[in-house]
């Protein structure tokens, strides 16, 4: 069976899967600390507590990290489907989700920088997984 062009290189779906899985882990950690009433560990970096205790850390009473967790799980499902089946619909879904996520994390990063005046390393790492994951799907679609 001949593979359609967007599965010709397994690197891209693998990279996207890895990024989505990293996003799931980060969001799960942030959601768990939030639900446990703890603050995320910042290590030598600072700003996490300021972001985590800000008014923007939850919306409709749900932690923002929980939205991130749900989002990353859906993206993970889409990129795994892309990886395993090479379905164009799956990569399109991952691409569309990624772009939507990119818009949202860009806004959240703006909030950190200009409204909360603190930058949280976990949030930046999460935003990077979303941005890079979207970049991978966009490049794969262009091929």
């Amino acid at each position, binding site marked *: *069976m*001949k*593979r*359609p*062009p967007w599965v*010709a290189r397994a690197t891209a779906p693998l990279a996207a899967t890895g990024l989505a899985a990293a996003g799931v882990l980060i969001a799960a950690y942030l959601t768990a600390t939030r639900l446990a009433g703890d603050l995320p560990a910042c290590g030598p970096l*600072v*700003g996490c*507590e*300021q972001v985590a*205790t*800000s*008014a*923007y*850390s*939850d*919306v*409709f*009473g749900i932690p923002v990290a929980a939205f991130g967790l749900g989002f990353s799980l859906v993206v993970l499902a889409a990129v795994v489907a892309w990886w395993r089946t090479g379905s*164009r*619909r799956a990569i*399109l879904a991952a*691409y*569309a*989700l*990624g*772009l*939507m*996520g*990119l*818009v*949202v994390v860009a*806004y959240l990063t703006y909030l950190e920088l200009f409204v909360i*005046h*603190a*930058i949280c390393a976990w949030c930046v790492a999460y935003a990077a997984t979303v941005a890079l994951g979207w970049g991978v799907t966009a490049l794969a*679609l262009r091929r």
Partner: protein
Amino acid sequence: MPADPSSPPVSRRERRRRERAEIPSGQHRRSSQKSVGRKGPSLAVVSLLAALFGFAAIAAFQLAAPGDEGSSPGVADLLVPPATIPAGIAVDGESAGRPDAALVLEIYGDYQCPVCARFAREYLGRLVADFVQPGDLRVVDRAIAFLGTGQPDESEQAAIGAACAADQNRYWAFHDILLWNQHGENEGAFSPERLAAMADAVGLERGAWDACVADPARLAAIRQATADAAAAQIVSTPTLVLGNANDPAGGERIVGMPRTYEELAAAIRARLATGAATSIAPTVP
């Protein structure tokens, strides 16, 4: 039922996969679907829709995030903290310590800023014991207000409440109760009712305090203080300015909470010893 009884039943999914496999790569076509373009929905349409969904999510977020009325803290759950400035230390409004102390530490903070509360809880008491009590340092609290979003603006109202407590020489008690009773930002921690309960808790004379809080000149003063600080590039809190009492303009600026108390104490000791500035790394943004 398949038309040819000799071939096994084939699922629709399987059939589609076979169809797809027959098409040479690069010419893939979704024949079984209402397709928009050559490869299904065009990338431009998908991108546009995805971006629109993203902006819709932001709009929903903006509608919901500031405020969050559901979890407004009540007046019953006020914490009454231990005094940061113990009795016996000379207090003049927002200033604590001997008027002739060699050094002055100005503490710029927004009452809604969580790191400012941490600074007050973790470092201020130690600073007082180590430097203010012996008479080497005078601390001056400089409230500014830039984190508030609603009306009334909780950062401004908290600062006004504290300034009015200063009129009764109870500034620091009000400062402490404010910082020990933060509840997120703009979530009602410093609602008018809760501020009034704090005024009662620290034993203010309510008639005078109420009249003071309602005075528009107080609001103008805190806004002016915030604008002055911004003009001096003090835009994040806490910002500490450590200077010699006889040279108020030559202070060294420490942006954010120093990573350890010792770092701050060392900077103060060095300045006490030499009268000169040392460098201290900015930490918490």
